């Protein structure tokens, strides 16, 4: 491993690199919290933290700390061993680094591991542990399957009231439960209880039918199919040591940016709707579909299903199609920017956006926020820039940044990204490099681990894949950016008016399915 410089107790890795499991440093579980916290001090961002059940019943924890400036991901592990009859445990990281909160709850829920000292130890998705042992909060009771049955944090006092919303909402959206502690209009605290969408996606990523696994990766969060498929494919291709053609990378990049455009444009329209600016809402609502239709032209599905597969892409973009897409995109560029420029000059829109749902840079760093929401709070991070892979190694998209951390900033970042993604696409569609678009994946390297990162329109998705002695895929961990960002939405609501909730929620527009897996 020439490319991986060791700092003590960590191994640094890049996308595309296949790590032998034996190379990953193992930290004693007593020292894990301190080890991670010292990495945080060196400008680390917690990109992932998860557990894996080993054959002997013990649990390995894997931590991924990203250094966005250096473009390195540092990996370490820790083995939790059973002493006497005590449940597996370790010192919680969350108490010193809140970014770990959801990840440690996930570990506790999946394996019955106790992160000792976790300040917010509650179920995350409501399911039994893998071996049927009790989670730290008790035994899972399948007769009580409602995630709404949850120990909510409560504010008490005269005139304090509680508002409960969900899981079935008013709109056509995914289920989740929001519990507000309010004093009049003011939200003192919002707690978000999810788990309704838990489908058991991760085990299906190991399905014996490879097409099935790839489709499950695409449906972890259906509006980020390309983003997740890209991270999944990258992880598997890295294990196989596969080299893809530039043409494949270009087509993947085109699909990823089209996905971003559809979602950003649609959400900006939905934001208009939430502030009752209906011209913006109706124009952008339609224009979102135009971008989906471009993806449909490429692969026969509006959400990009079946385009990416480990080893390449299943659909080529021949010259005539590229020209057609390009000319349609030019028309859309004019239309979309006309509407967005109009939208961002309406004082009625700006007055509602500005100062709503503020998340400071400090808060964003503390909780490990990613994606446009993080960039809106002044955190400079974008996988396409920091960990460039595929086409992004050659074509650079400038990072869109704002600093105010409010709904305006989150909308403005997306406005900028819309412009830059269109420019990127117009250039790329004009000269797609040559190459073979798909070749079968060779054997995977045994006893290894590799990961794929992608900047979905919501932020960083990460898939980590492990192989066994025989080079068979043994474990895949998927992370949607929502795993980081739901906490951000809860914090942004503190002190805000409850009537601003729909607006704030839309400005993040997080994935329930991606979180619940």
């Amino acid at each position: 491993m020439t490319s991986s410089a060791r700092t003590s107790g960590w191994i640094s890795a890049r996308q595309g690199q296949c790590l032998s499991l034996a190379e990953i440093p193992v930290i004693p579980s007593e020292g894990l919290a301190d080890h991670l916290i010292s990495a945080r001090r060196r400008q680390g961002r917690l990109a992932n933290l998860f557990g894996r059940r080993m054959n002997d019943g013990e649990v390995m924890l894997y931590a991924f700390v990203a250094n966005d400036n250096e473009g390195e991901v540092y990996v370490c592990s820790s083995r939790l061993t059973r002493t006497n009859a005590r449940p597996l445990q370790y010192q919680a990281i969350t108490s010193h680094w809140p970014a770990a909160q959801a990840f440690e709850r996930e570990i506790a829920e999946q394996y019955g591991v106790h992160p000792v000292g976790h300040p917010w130890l509650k179920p995350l998705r409501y399911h039994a542990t893998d071996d049927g042992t009790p989670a730290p909060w008790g035994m899972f009771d399948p007769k009580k399957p409602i995630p709404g049955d949850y120990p909510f944090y409560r504010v008490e006092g005269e005139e304090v009231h509680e508002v409960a919303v969900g899981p079935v909402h008013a709109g056509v959206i995914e289920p989740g439960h929001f519990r507000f502690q309010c004093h009049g209009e003011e939200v003192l605290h919002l707690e978000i209880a999810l788990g309704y969408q838990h489908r058991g996606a991760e085990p299906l990523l190991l399905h014996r039918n490879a097409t099935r696994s790839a489709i499950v990766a695409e449906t972890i969060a259906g509006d980020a199919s390309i983003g997740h498929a890209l991270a999944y494919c990258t992880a598997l291709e890295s294990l196989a040591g596969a080299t893809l053609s530039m043409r494949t990378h270009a087509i993947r990049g085109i699909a990823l940016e089209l996905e971003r455009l559809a979602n950003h444009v649609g959400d900006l329209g939905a934001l208009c709707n939430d502030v009752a600016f209906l011209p913006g809402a109706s124009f952008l609502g339609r224009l979102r579909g135009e971008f989906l239709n471009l993806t449909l032209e490429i692969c026969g599905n509006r959400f990009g299903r079946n385009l990416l597969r480990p080893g390449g892409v299943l659909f080529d973009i021949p010259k005539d199609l590229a020209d057609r897409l390009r000319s349609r995109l030019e028309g859309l560029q004019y239309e979309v920017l006309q509407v967005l420029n109009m939208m961002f000059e309406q004082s009625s829109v700006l007055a509602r956006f500005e100062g709503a749902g503020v998340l400071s840079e400090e808060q964003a760093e503390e909780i490990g926020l990613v994606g446009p929401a993080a960039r809106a709070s002044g955190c400079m991070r974008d996988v396409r820039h920091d960990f460039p892979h595929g086409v992004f190694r050659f074509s650079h998209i400038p990072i869109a940044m704002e600093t105010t951390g409010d709904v305006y900033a989150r909308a403005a970042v997306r406005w900028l990204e819309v412009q830059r993604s269109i420019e990127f696409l117009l250039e790329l569609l004009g000269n797609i490099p040559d190459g073979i678009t798909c070749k079968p994946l060779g054997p995977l390297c045994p006893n290894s681990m590799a990961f794929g990162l992608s900047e979905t329109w919501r932020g960083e998705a990460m898939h980590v894949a492990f192989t066994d002695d025989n080079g068979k895929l043994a474990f895949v961990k998927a992370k949607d950016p929502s795993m980081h960002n739901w906490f951000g939405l809860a914090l942004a609501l503190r002190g805000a008016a409850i009537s601003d909730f729909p607006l704030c929620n839309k400005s993040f527009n997080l994935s329930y399915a991606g979180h619940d897996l």
Partner: protein
Amino acid sequence: MLRILRTRIAQGHRTTTFPLELPVLPERYRGRPKIDASKCPEGCRLCEEACPTQAISLSGGLSLDLGKCLFCTACVDACPEGAIKYTTDFRLATSQRKDLVLTDGDLKLAERMRDELYRVIGRALRLREVCAGSCNACDLDTNVLNTVGWDLSRFGIQFVASPRHADGLLVTGPITRNMHHALMETYEAVPKPKIVIALGACAISGGPFADSPQVNNGVDATLPVDLYIPGCPPHPLTILDGLLRFIGRLPRATDER
């Protein structure tokens, strides 16, 4: 204000002419598959083996269950004889689960709801959507019908906030264990007579999540379903076509191709 008006004029009229005219879908769009069992070599099971959801069966002749089909390309790519092909026919909705099983013959598309239902809810259908584990794609392409491009309300169909105001449910997702209770409560809250629409492969059969211990394999294990709209996710045209058949609002001319 002037800027808004200028933009409004530039945007123009954008509502689809469907169902009066049939839109042309791109060549690569994967609509209703067409199967030709006569091309199958003796003993060949390549498509059946390739299918990620066991939608294809060869026992008793080649058949393809559209309720399980994810409209991927695994079978088409696996078949050396070209016995399975996708067409751009977007009409897929059926009234009965068994009608989704495609053989050599034609698909028996959805019929108008029964007369006694039609009299009560047929001319102004109000739906409460329940997402019970969908990846969000089915929900998004349902939502699309409310945009100016489709203008669903011109057909008297509307999505409402409360199940108390609804005539039925439109359900997406494989019905996760954690949403089962909320789905049942929502169904109970809808006044009778009520209908249920299963939208997408997950709601019909569990889709890519079929047989996961965390899900029920679709809605009809727990509730009676009146309309099945297959796809992963179905195209908005497929959804609208299904809904219009269900309320008997599809002009006859549109149905002949």
